[in-house]
């Protein structure tokens, strides 16, 4: 949990207002880790946002006495602490309900996949979703807020070698995509240049030619702007493939083949942004969720299950979600029909 406190007035906020309206001091960010149940109600009223009943609406309290609302699919006792287990398997998917503080969401989602090691010497490459020259609010691309949160996270981890890269698989200039989407401004603020993977060297891995910059990174953070009915996370990884090679493979073997091949990269962590993911009709819906996994196909499959979406690409339909280890929030806690309400 995160809250904000005025160092002078000691007033507290759960909203990131930034400045105290009484004394105009900058608010301090306080992060807490405990969540003890102080009240619980079994809810038997289905509604559009929470269709599956019963569920348990809890009031939880942290170690600083701040109280929060929390939905649980499991019955919890008063006094019980809510503890999140970390993933055991590399193919696990972590689900987190993001509040206002996206940095907190990134910190929590990554912590759930515990065997991630980042040091000052780590070489990290970020692949944001950058597919169309549209404003942030269309939700086609990685949002400026999310990219900012991930960069902030890496800064806290003292990572110095950070690249942000993309490649256009059509004729669009990635610089113009980044400009219109607002990502350029985020990169400029963080003094990072956008790397065009088309200008890098490529190395063959089986039939697929992948950018050496991607292969050589200690960690590739695949920032997927999730969209219902699609395998956006895996699609985004296609951009690390040499463009002509990608076109040829797509023609000869189809994207399902490419998805399986790119899935063999073992240095990729996909963080899926689903704060306002798009539906198949391109309207965005408010979900306030973040997903993470080392297996991009698993992530996309789980994401679509939480939106009760069944129309999927073939390789995603073949994923058996019931066999995937889920950590963080459960599917039932966040599941709803995304076609019903925005």
């Amino acid at each position, binding site marked *: 949990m995160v809250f904000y406190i005025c160092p002078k007035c000691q007033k507290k906020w759960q909203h990131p207002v930034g400045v105290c309206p009484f004394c105009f001091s900058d608010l301090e960010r306080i992060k807490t880790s405990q969540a003890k149940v102080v009240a619980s*109600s079994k809810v*038997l*009223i289905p509604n559009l946002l929470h269709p599956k009943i019963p569920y348990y*609406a809890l009031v939880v309290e942290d170690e600083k006495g701040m109280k929060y*609302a*929390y939905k649980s699919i499991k019955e919890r006792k008063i006094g019980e602490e809510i503890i999140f287990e970390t993933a055991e398997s590399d193919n696990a998917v972590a689900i987190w309900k993001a509040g*206002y503080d996206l940095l907190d969401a990134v910190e929590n989602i990554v912590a759930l996949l515990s065997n991630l090691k980042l040091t000052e010497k780590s070489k990290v490459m970020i692949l944001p979703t950058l597919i169309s020259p549209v404003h942030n609010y269309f939700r086609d691309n990685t949002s400026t807020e999310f990219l900012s949160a991930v960069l902030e996270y890496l800064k806290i981890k003292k990572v110095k070698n950070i690249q942000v890269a993309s490649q256009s698989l059509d004729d669009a200039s990635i610089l113009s995509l980044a400009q219109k989407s607002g990502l350029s401004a985020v990169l400029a603020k963080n003094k990072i240049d956008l790397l065009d993977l088309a200008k890098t060297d490529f190395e063959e891995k089986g039939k697929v030619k992948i950018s050496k910059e991607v292969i050589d990174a200690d960690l590739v953070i695949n920032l997927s702007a999730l969209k219902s009915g699609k395998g956006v996370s895996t699609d985004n990884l296609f951009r690390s493939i040499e463009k002509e090679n990608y076109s040829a493979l797509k023609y000869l073997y189809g994207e399902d083949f490419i998805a399986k091949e790119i899935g063999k990269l073992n240095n990729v962590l996909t963080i899926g942004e689903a704060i306002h993911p798009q539906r198949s009709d391109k309207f965005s819906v408010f979900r306030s969720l973040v997903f993470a996994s080392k297996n991009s196909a698993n992530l996309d499959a789980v994401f679509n299950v939480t939106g009760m979406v069944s129309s999927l690409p073939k390789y995603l339909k073949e994923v058996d979600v019931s066999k995937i280890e889920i950590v963080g929030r459960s599917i039932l806690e966040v599941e709803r029909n995304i076609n019903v309400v925005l």
Partner: protein
Amino acid sequence: MYIKGVGMTKFDYSTRHWWDFAYEAAIEALRDANMSIKDIDAIVFTSISSAAGGEHQTHKVSFLSDLFKTNVPIIELASVCGGGGAAFWTALKMKGFNNILVLAAEKFADNKSEIVVDWILSAAEKVCEQTEGMLFPTQNALIWQMYMKKYGATMDDLSLIAFKNHQHAALNPKAYFYQKPIDLEKIKNSPEVSSPLRLMDCSLSVNGGAAVIISSEKTDIEVVGSGFATDYILTFGRDDITHFKATRLAAAQAFSQAGITPADIDVAEIHDAFTSVELISYEDLGFAEEGKGAELIRSGKLNLGGSMPVNVSGGLKAKGHPISATGLAQIYEIVHQLRGDCNERQVANAKIGLTHNIGGAGGSITVHILKKV
């Protein structure tokens, strides 16, 4: 300021347009005031359903201009369930107008219950509460759970409140449960909806409208106290989660202006969106000491015939609760009680009445005190 006329529709599941409820209530109020629309200098209107829900209608100020063929200033404000009280408070504060029509209309029961529940859920905080399943009954269930743990009240106490209000509503022709009393056992045995609150602890979301005309011209009913306070939208981020601070603040303002104490109130309409809210409000309004609300309902004093009947109209519980219209319907009841024309549900010698209207889970609250002059 004085009250010149009041009007309200029957509260039920009629599927008329929202504006039809507004119009009917306004016409009754105008006739009650012996006025026509040309005597009205301004209108204050409140409603959430027409924008939030199926009516898909914003810019209602212009709509009302058309309905009433008027060009006077019309203000629209919204404060969910507290809209009526907030509109009334706002009208009282407006200077330079002789006669103001305060109007509310709600067409909420207009689709499957999942949608209605969703519309009401939108009054909770979007990111921190809506996404965590904090439905309106659920928030109140959690508040009540913590209250019970702290003070020892029971679900039987809430049953008494529901029973009282249903007994009263059975006598009110405008109430949904008019001539339909419900027995205590049925209330006690009603199924849980969000533990520990049961179906019969929850008010009924119905459709309807209400209107009040206030005037600078002296009439037999004077508004002697008016209070309005707000509290944080994050219900569980407040300091005290077992009471409603905004009620205490609004009540203090109203009693101070009126120069009276809670002991002087003869009849009250208290916001019973849930029976638990009514009980807690006895304490917040000063009718009972902290933690003693249960003793008060058990005493029988709040039933018709008692020393301070509460929710003689049937309350939100049994009259029905068309969200924004409720606050004005409370004024309607108190005005008629003070005039002495409530027939079977008349409170004897009612001279001073109180209305208490809550928006959301205690986020915006008004208290008004009316006196027969």
